[in-house]
């Protein structure tokens, strides 16, 4: 299960943040980043994301060979209620998608690995960035799994945020439905 999920809008502002840190984790040890820190984090990610594409080595620029960009589909099965799957908003079937998909983030940062956690970034064609922070303690979660999860969150975003008449674009997301659906989705992992 990821530690946190962030949504960054196309101008680099943090519009959604949710922490999934387990309660039993040593609470005194963890210095929680303040909301200001998280805003800085989001804009740092946004700006370094752009720099990364300018740093492409000359050897790759000379090659001109397109790199494979397809992300394989990873099914996410809820072990608790296998039989009747709840409806997925406006998506039909028992999963949001069932085929490998294109990664639109071709030259920007995809993941940052540190001693404690790994940050994964999924970017949509419209410039929205979904960020997941995964602790290094969980070894089952890799880049493909996180990309699949983040694309599902993007599906949730398109359902519960974009179709909300009270939501103004690029502003912080304050949708109860989005919140609970995201929570359920992340818990499956």
């Amino acid at each position, binding site marked *: 299960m990821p530690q946190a999920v962030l949504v960054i809008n196309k101008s680099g502002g943090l519009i959604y943040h949710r922490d999934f840190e387990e309660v039993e*984790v*040593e609470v005194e*040890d*963890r*210095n929680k*980043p303040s909301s200001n*820190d*998280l805003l*800085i*984090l989001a804009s*740092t*990610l946004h*700006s*370094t994301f752009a*720099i*990364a*594409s*300018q*740093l*492409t*080595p*000359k*050897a*790759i620029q*000379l*090659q001109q060979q397109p*790199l494979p*960009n397809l992300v394989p589909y990873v099914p996410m099965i809820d072990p608790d209620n296998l039989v009747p799957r709840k409806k997925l908003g406006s998506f039909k079937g028992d999963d949001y998608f069932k085929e490998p998909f294109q*990664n639109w*983030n*071709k*030259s*920007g*940062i*995809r*993941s*940052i*690995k*540190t*001693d*404690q*956690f790994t*940050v994964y970034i999924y970017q949509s064609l419209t410039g929205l960035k979904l960020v997941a*922070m995964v602790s290094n303690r969980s070894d089952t979660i890799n*880049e493909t799994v996180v990309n699949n999860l983040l694309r599902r969150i993007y599906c949730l975003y398109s359902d519960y945020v974009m179709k909300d008449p009270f939501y103004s674009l690029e502003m912080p997301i304050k949708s109860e439905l989005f919140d609970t659906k995201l929570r359920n989705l992340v818990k499956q992992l």
Partner: protein
Amino acid sequence: MAIYSFWIFDRHCNCIFDREWTLSSNSSSGTVNSKQNEETAKLLYGMVFSLRSMTQKVSSGPLKNEIKSIATGKYRIHVYCTASGLQFVLITDFKQQSYTEVLQYIYSHIYVKYVAHNLFSAYDFADNKNETRGQGFRKIANRNFVQSLESFLSPMIVQ
């Protein structure tokens, strides 16, 4: 092609060594300490610096949360920092997950041997105040260092 370029930054934010390979077929191709790479070096240092400060801010526990690698869609950056403020950066492709041992070896067996233990080599590559804060231009030009680094890294260019 497994490794694309290698960079060393000192504690004054200066790039003191850079090596870029351009052709996988020829291990001696590319540039060493080139003037053209100055801008790239600054961008690279700035990116690693801001991501490092960001990850340290959101870390938990008493230990420092150092950045290990940054992956983009096309290449991967591996970072190894020493307590003295040196930064060893290696840009590679995706075939190998971790280059930590490689960077550690470069630091402890090549940098320390040929630069730190060398009386004729400057131990600090910024001569005066004007060359700190990324304004420096001095590079490691030590022949032994360049040669042994080259022979150590050349098997990794084509992997």
